[in-house]
């Protein structure tokens, strides 16, 4: 069975639709959504409705910091853009959409796989897995062989051997990587809705539970349409919309 791992959707309808379509054509029957459905993008309502429908079909759905931010109001550690985007997003969502976001768990565990937005050692603190040290800390904090998390917007693969040595790897899209079972793996599929590694194409990953192969994917989508939708969004400050649209275009 193949699970599509999708994270950091950030209300980007065009990117999410392209990724869902791509994943289904690759044979994904199961979805794991790793948080941050809203914030930054122009279409939070549509994205949340899709996520809710997927969850009803059995998808794993965990909460991200932006989702909590929208339901609880912005947190003091957020930067100005994030704060403004969250306040705008809150105004776009219905009561039931907000209630759905508020109901999401911080982490899910299933068949040796941990699904969590930021890390395993402090899921609600949202510390970033920026390198081997944090990856090791996260892998030590779970019994699960595989950890799938988002929060970092660049695709990355970490591994920890039985002898305690950690390694990192910047993946190449489209190449299957066997995640051998005698070490622990931490997978960051990269951002679907706001890539930041200089490549504007949407990122996600596919994990085949039977062959234990992981394949990172990049899906080109209509960035111009997503940017235009941001600039056309009513109520979003023009300067902010422009900055967000520009980030999408250059993938930063």
């Amino acid at each position, binding site marked *: 069975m193949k699970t599509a791992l999708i994270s950091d959707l950030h209300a980007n309808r065009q990117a999410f639709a392209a990724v869902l379509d791509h994943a289904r054509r690759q044979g994904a029957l199961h979805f794991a959504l790793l948080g941050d459905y809203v914030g930054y993008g122009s279409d939070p309502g549509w994205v949340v409705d899709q996520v809710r429908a997927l969850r009803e079909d059995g998808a794993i759905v965990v909460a991200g910091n932006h989702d909590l931010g929208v339901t609880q109001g912005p947190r003091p550690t957020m930067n100005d853009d994030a704060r403004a985007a969250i306040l705008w997003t809150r105004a776009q969502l219905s009561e039931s959409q907000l209630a759905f976001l508020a109901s999401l768990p911080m982490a899910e565990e299933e068949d040796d796989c941990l699904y969590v937005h930021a890390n395993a050692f402090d899921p609600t603190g949202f510390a970033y897995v920026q390198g081997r040290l944090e990856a090791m800390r996260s892998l030590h904090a779970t019994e699960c062989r595989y950890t799938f998390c988002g929060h970092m917007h660049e695709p990355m693969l970490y591994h920890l051997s039985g002898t305690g040595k950690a390694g990192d790897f910047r993946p190449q899209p489209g190449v299957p990587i066997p995640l051998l079972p005698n*070490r622990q793996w931490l997978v960051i599929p990269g951002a679907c809705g706001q890539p930041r590694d200089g490549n504007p194409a949407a990122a996600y990953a596919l994990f085949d539970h039977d062959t234990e192969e992981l394949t990172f994917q990049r899906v080109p989508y209509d960035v111009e349409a997503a940017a235009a939708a941001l600039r056309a969004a009513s109520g979003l400050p023009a300067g902010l919309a422009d900055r967000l649209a520009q980030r999408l275009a250059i993938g930063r």
Partner: protein
Amino acid sequence: MNDAHPTPASPSTPVPITTPLQPGQVLDGFVLEARLHQGGMANLWQVRRQSPADAPEGETFPLIMKVPRIKGGEDPASIVGFEVEQMILPALKGPHVPRFVARGDWRRQAYIVMERIEADSLRPRLDQAPLPLVEVVEIGIQVAHALTDLHRQHLVHLDIKPSNILLRPDGSVVLVDFGLSRHDFLPDLLEEEFSLPMGTGPYMSPEQVQFVRNDPRSDLFALGVMLYHLSTGERPFGQPTSVRQLRRRLYVDPIPPRAIRPELPPWFQEIVLHCLEVRAERRYQSAAQLALDLQRPDAVPLTARAHKLQRSGLVRRFKRWFLALGEEPQAPASVGAQVARSPVIMAAVDVQGATPALLEALREVVRRLMQTEPGARLACVGVMKTNRLGMDELTDAQGRSHHVQQLIALKNWAHPMTRELALEDGRLTFHVLEAPDTGDALIEFAAKTGVDHVVMGARASSVIRRYLGSVSAQVVTQCTCSVTVVREPPQPDDPPPPDSPPISPSASN
């Protein structure tokens, strides 16, 4: 999620197999028939599928199972090396690697099932060294072809040695044991694991000694060690047993092969010592470039390497030792990056038939290609038409001088470019092919020598061309590599009046 293989325990905790494997035993649907080989790191079993219906389509070959030998509890080197091979082998394809079939879970019983290659390794040939030169050269060509293929698949083997090379009856080779290999697109499990250089002592490249694990030129160094050993019967760097001894190759050069066996030709020594250069950027830049020289010894440009009869003196050695102390090797960004920047470019030049304007245009296109790719290798090729039937002595003598004249003309054509780009140290060779059919000769040369890109000229259309087809059209349709066809620059419709100055500078040198 592992419902395909129901086991009594939960899928996350398979029951380990603790008793030694026995003939007749069935493991994950594979029947162990006989143990073929007991090695230091792994045992090889002949296996077959318990129910042949399980075989995927196309699996019509015999199978072996490679099972790691774990010595006295946990041995990180063999465990991680085996994991690396389990990860890398499925990513490789083509005739130079065994086909991957299945892998076994470490927590139960680790193994790899793969295609059984019906061939012996080159290891026994080492005991027969020195081998006849033709044989050594043929082995070198075949291994270089296999390396070209693997390097293009973004893999550097890093443990090239006779025991890892299987020689098929048809002379082609299969490379095995990818336990130390590095693939651009797969995590390097070995990188962080060990604090000692990884490789086999006699064959390890200087940059491997310095922990570089992604340079395809490391495999060319190891192949050079093998060619040296097979042709002289001696190891160029002995059998080092410590890191200090390993580091000696950074500053002590080997005894030149011709000092051991004076009958070896200078071109062969040139090739071997070119492979054994300490700095990777002074070696052949790709396996295809090495294969080209091994296949065309007469075109190998001889440098001081070819004529050396003793190692460098103590002063030189001391200087190198001193420089090697703080030296960091220049590693490429990746295997793929090194392959991409080291193409073999073939300029097919009709020095006698083409117009000066076309020759100049052709040279300009080749010059631009060579300038953008500092690792590129240029082969300038001309074809001398011969009769299909044998020649008598008189025409043979004429043929010789004709051949030499063509060579001179080719070099003259290339000269403005080679001077400007300072193409040196084997980056440039000249070849005059003798063949009845120009197109066939060019296509065969490109295929055999692993040319990446052919650049050739095409004259304006003529009546004969319209009916018979042009050489360039034949090369474009039949060559498997990229072909650039350079057209004759447009000429003014009316010839200029006789007293006007020339329109373009002269094409002569």
